[in-house]
């Protein structure tokens, strides 16, 4: 994903970076990104998909780490799989990208949170131990963004 150069600078004018490699995070010049795909119909999805809700390929990307989000709902899971922190607080959040809603799921930095709270993405190099679970280590990325209340 080193070809992903989406950054705060380029977010004003959607670039045409390929979303094919889109796991979510990319190490661009300005650090890791939380890459969502933008489609011709204006919709944005996280993660990117080969074809969007409109049935068409993405036309650009958006780095959600440049935005804040609102907590839609959250939980604290105490029965966690191998390699996952326990307890594991998680939230579904909604970003507002120039009026377009985009949802994401991720770990929380705290369990002191409520529905409707504002959060921001903070980078984490390793969200769970890639060697402990059933998923093949090389098949996906293990870094990403946790959500921290503002």
């Amino acid at each position, binding site marked *: 994903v080193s070809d992903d150069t989406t950054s705060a600078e380029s977010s004003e004018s959607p670039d045409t970076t390929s979303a094919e490699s889109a796991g979510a995070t990319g190490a661009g010049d300005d650090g890791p990104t939380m890459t969502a795909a933008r489609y011709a119909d204006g919709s944005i999805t996280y993660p990117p998909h080969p074809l969007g809700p409109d049935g068409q390929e993405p036309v650009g990307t958006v780095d959600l780490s440049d935005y804040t989000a609102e907590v839609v709902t959250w939980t604290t*899971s105490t029965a966690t799989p191998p390699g996952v922190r326990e307890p*594991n607080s998680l939230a579904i959040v909604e970003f507002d990208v120039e009026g377009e809603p985009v949802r*994401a*799921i991720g770990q929380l930095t705290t369990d002191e949170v409520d529905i409707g709270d504002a959060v921001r993405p903070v980078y984490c190099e390793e969200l769970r131990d890639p060697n402990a679970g*059933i*998923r093949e280590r090389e*098949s996906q990325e293990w870094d990403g963004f946790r959500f921290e209340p503002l």
Partner: protein
Amino acid sequence: MDRVAIIGASMTQFGDRDAWVRELLAEAGEACLADAGVSPDEVDHLYVSNMASGEFEGQTGVPNALAHDLAAMPAYTARIDQTSSSGGAGVYAAWQSVASGASDVTLLVGGEKMTHRSTAEATDVIASLTHPVEYKHGVTLPSFAGLTARLYLDTYDAPRESLGKVAVKNHRNGLDNPHAQFRKEVDLDTVLESPVVADPLRLYDFCPITDGSAALLLCRESVAKEYTDDYAVVTGIGGATDTHVVHERADPTTMRGVVESSEIAYEMADRDPDDVDVAELHDMFTILEFLQSEDLGFFEKGEGWKAVEEGVTDRDGDLPINTSGGLKSKGHPLGASGVAQVYEIYKQVVGDAGPRQVEADVGLACNVGGFGNCVTTTILEGSA
């Protein structure tokens, strides 16, 4: 079109079993053939509903193994994996094989062996169905349930106790199911004070980890009478998918796969939700019983919890839900569950449900995979 009939059914004891997946499948398969009085060489198609025998046990190729163990060669075999809804998808495949004319007699056996793994390992096998952006955060199916339950309670102003009452009801129903993993009544305080698993949900809001198997035998309705007078007809069946990435759904409290699959099934059966007399819903988590009972059209969105509070879904209520005890008390051997749901509805509509029997001409089973990712809805009616 000649409709498809179910002429035999069986299920093994669900629970913590010594048997491995091959033995569980053979136990249910043999019992099902015996129930219908059909010899194994009459089986044209043999389907096995199973999510993860390779991951759980290192045993793949289970349909062929079962064909040999049941002496059903040269039957055509296939494994049907649709995660937790493998059973429902197997019912669909079996129905399709007979409806299309490809098979005269189809045996469907669903089964899973899970209890030899720790809860953490079994949770991880099931969570492996998630998207990489979910999996890397340690998202599990129970955590989806916690996320959705919190939003449901908040959105519809439902009391936490209403979820607990689903567990109480289904445990009570399971008392009369000899195959259930738990035949133990629980009171509301026990549910509400049990350990937190995925806040706000607690231990008793979740189904257990289970070994078990269930089977069905299907043929065309026009020849069903040659085997038995007591058969059920698959009058409607539909399957549908929703997003793989759960957070991308516009309304997290609506399972579009349930809505879409049931609309197909209702239309095929020429039935409405009001016509359903008894239903088996996929209560892997208590919150799922609310979501499905609404998305199947039994109750308005956000009102499903009231039906439980008012006893509407009790065994002696207007619409009994999960007379078998549901996944909650019966147990949830992944690939077996959707088959066992149809086993219960078959027993209800042919009038052979014993102490669990309710007045039922039309029954519905809704089997959910992932967190609503894949769904099969099946409607059965008695032959009378």
